């Protein structure tokens, strides 16, 4: 029988996912949303429920530390404590974890956390390729691939078994039969490739906060798709009343003041797909982020037409993320949902209220395994 805490644990997970005890939802903090940083330090999503208590306002309080430095020097950004010893029922420290992780591991954590299904790459012309991976052990091989630990173990086993092992003088001498070598396995990999096309409304109503959300979200989407596909290409389109393709930096920096014609971006997206990406070979992911404003209902009609006739047939899935802003009307979301339904097969819609809902929205987009 499992320990009863596993029931507490699954109950906690259910509360976090909003399945039960919905009135607790407002106390859930998602933990610091991991932000892409240059030095490879990420914050792990660590959801928790904060029981409301009388407590001190945080900023006013400050704190104490030990170490070098003059008044005015920053105290953040330093490594915290090393491994500590725990003791029963003490400590109410903050759960904020920073850790070095490879992107692969990070994608794994994201996948586990959000229970993302693996994507079955499409494309008939997936090309097979064989790759050597040194994952197994053999009894023959060149010296350069000798596995010392395993060889030692074999020798030790043999000496113990044959009674020549002397615990007071534990010298192990391997003989020829003891040696073990790393050996390769053939692994068949399939060539597959994906292209992600990000489109974003950069008209005046999209502020810095909204862009930061899109930036964080796109980081995680890229991370996940990279873990799923062998090759991945990312293209960026910005638009106000006209659209143009830009590089990543410009994508997140540009701010225009013009009006908004979403169709302009969709047209450019369609042209890019038609020119460079054959949908039989490529997995295509167009993402569009905006605050939901469009210039006119006529333009929205054009948008739907382009989507239906050209973009959707060639894409795996089309994702629209609506970032809440003070100025946006959110009309485009309504238009899309009335046309495709809230839970469309090929069109996924998600509303992103604030930073805390980024994870939910990623789950919306990638949770279908397409």
């Amino acid at each position, binding site marked *: 029988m499992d*320990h009863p*805490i596993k029931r*507490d*644990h*699954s*109950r*906690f*997970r259910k509360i976090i996912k909003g399945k*039960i*005890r919905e*009135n*607790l939802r407002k*106390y859930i903090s998602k933990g610091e949303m991991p932000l892409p940083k240059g030095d490879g330090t990420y914050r*792990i999503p*660590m959801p*928790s*429920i*904060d*029981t*409301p*208590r*009388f*407590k*001190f*306002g*945080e900023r*006013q309080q*400050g*704190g*104490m*530390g*030990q*170490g*070098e*430095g*003059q*008044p*005015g*020097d*920053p*105290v*953040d950004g*330093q490594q915290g*404590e*090393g*491994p*500590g*010893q*725990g*003791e*029963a*029922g*003490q*400590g109410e*420290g903050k*759960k904020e*974890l920073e*850790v070095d*992780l490879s992107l692969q591991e990070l994608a794994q*954590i994201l996948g586990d956390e959000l229970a993302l299904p693996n994507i079955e790459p499409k494309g008939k012309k997936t090309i097979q390729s064989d790759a050597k991976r040194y994952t197994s052990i053999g009894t023959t091989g060149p010296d350069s691939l000798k596995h010392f630990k395993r060889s030692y173990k074999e020798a030790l086993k043999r000496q113990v078994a044959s009674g020549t092992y002397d615990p007071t003088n534990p010298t192990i001498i391997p003989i020829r039969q003891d040696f073990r070598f790393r050996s390769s396995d053939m692994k068949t990999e399939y060539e597959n490739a994906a292209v992600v096309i990000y489109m974003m409304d950069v008209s005046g109503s999209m502020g810095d906060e909204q862009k930061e959300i899109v930036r964080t979200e796109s980081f995680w989407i890229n991370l996940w798709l990279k873990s799923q596909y062998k090759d991945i290409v990312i293209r960026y389109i910005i638009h106000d009343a006209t659209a143009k393709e830009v590089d990543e930096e410009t994508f997140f920096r540009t701010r225009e003041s013009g009006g908004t014609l979403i169709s302009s971006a969709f047209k450019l997206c369609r042209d890019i797909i038609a020119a460079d990406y054959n949908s039989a070979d490529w997995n295509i992911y167009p993402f569009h982020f905006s605050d939901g404003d469009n210039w006119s209902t006529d333009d929205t009609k054009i948008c739907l037409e382009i989507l239906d006739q050209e973009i959707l047939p060639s894409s795996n899935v089309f994702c629209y993320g609506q970032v809440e802003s003070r100025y946006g009307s959110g009309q485009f979301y309504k238009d899309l949902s009335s046309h495709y339904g809230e839970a469309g097969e090929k069109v996924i819609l998600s509303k992103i209220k604030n930073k805390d809902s980024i994870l939910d929205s990623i789950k919306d987009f990638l949770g279908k395994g397409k």
Partner: protein
Amino acid sequence: MTNFRTRSIDGELQILKEEIEGYALTSGLDFYPVLFEVCDYDTVNILAAQGGFPSRYPHWRFGMEYDQLSKGYAYGLQKIYEMVVNTNPCYAYLLNANHWVDQKIVMAHVFGHADFFKNNLWFHNTDRKMMDVMANHGTKIRRYMNRYGQDRVEAHIDRVLSLENLLSMDVLFETAELQRRRTDIEKLASEEKKQGQDDDRSQALKSFMRSKERYKGKLEGPAKDDERASDEARPMAAALKKLPTKDIMAFLMDYAPLQEWESDVVGILRDEAYYFLPQRMTKIMNEGWASYWHSTIMCTKALSPSEIIDFADHHAGVMAMSRQQLNPYKVGIELFRDIEYRWNTGKFGKDYLECNDMHEKTHWNKNLGQGREKIFQVRRTHNDITFIDEFFTPEFCERQQLFTYKYNPRTGRNEIETRDFQLIKSKLLTSLTNFGQPLIEITEANFENRGELLLRHVHQGVDLDMGFATETMRNIFQLWKRPINLLTKVDDSETLFSFDGKEMRTRAK
């Protein structure tokens, strides 16, 4: 303990335990029997999530702790080497994957804690049979859940946990009333014994029955106590007599319009909160004392030469200083060592303090040799606040490179504020006051003659987080069922917050 997840130590570990225990005893440590159990990391995480106890009531909070501990372990961020529970016998858990030298350190460390639990004044009244009590609490709450529904009971627990940090340290001492209650219970227990001479019911069952008795006594009103009997008729009058009080859970348990099971749950959670309170009040001392002893025992006796590097590495990891928060292990051990040094050399008292010759002061040595004796005495009588207040000196502060920091809104980061001794000391003491929690008391239960509750925040320089306060008051409202008022200061002006079940109103006072 017959728990398949942990097993008692045997063989080499048992021999090691006897060796270390011998060192601890000859050093003068005094403790209840210590039972070591070995388990894997998952079990350690479970136990740690449950505050060291193998059985608790069902609640998501333990699942949350477990979630975080397991992730921390899986991602290699943290690892629990050891855990020790304040009970008699004292249970301590060892991780089976620990290195040999780690097991030695942990054992030595545990004996330090065990000595502290037994001898420190603030632990004097903690229930040493808490293993059984916690298990009983679990049984009771599970039974309530079966009867009233898990969601309903859990929601009630959530509300009560909002008050878990509002405790009164006075309760740790035997008040007259407490003593009377205790003798009543004991009388009852001895009567029970007489009734069934060969009563072979387990201690746990008896303690369970006693807690029911206690409860019954409260509800039906003991006829022997006239005053209480008459108060029973006018509960409000009785309630008002108890005010003001900082023991907010007790007040609500006795006087809020709760159903029987609801107030029993409040009582259960209150008992558990008070059990953990002394540990929260002596974090620095307790960890410092245990670290002092693991270091002393290891370095003078238990360590073999080949282990010295591993020990130094491990010890340094535990003692690491941090710029964001004080490491209680570090501050604690250094302060105990400083006290020992000062009482060995005589660097205390009038003569020393009034000496103006810096050279003489630095080389001051009266060869008193009272250090060891002094620290044993300190571990008996102090808690973190008095420990810091009495022994935290300017020299110590400088040597430990302490500073305070503050958030600078201009640069958006935390910055070193000062290294001034007085300011650091007062900030440290403030952060320890009322074990770091805001001091809240109930001052009126019939506020403005409308049966409303008035809470007063004794403002000591730091404002409350009003977002959290609102939600907390919402939870109290659901227990008291009348509007809740909170008197506090916001930006230096007295403000009265009133929560009527729907919305929060503020009024400047």
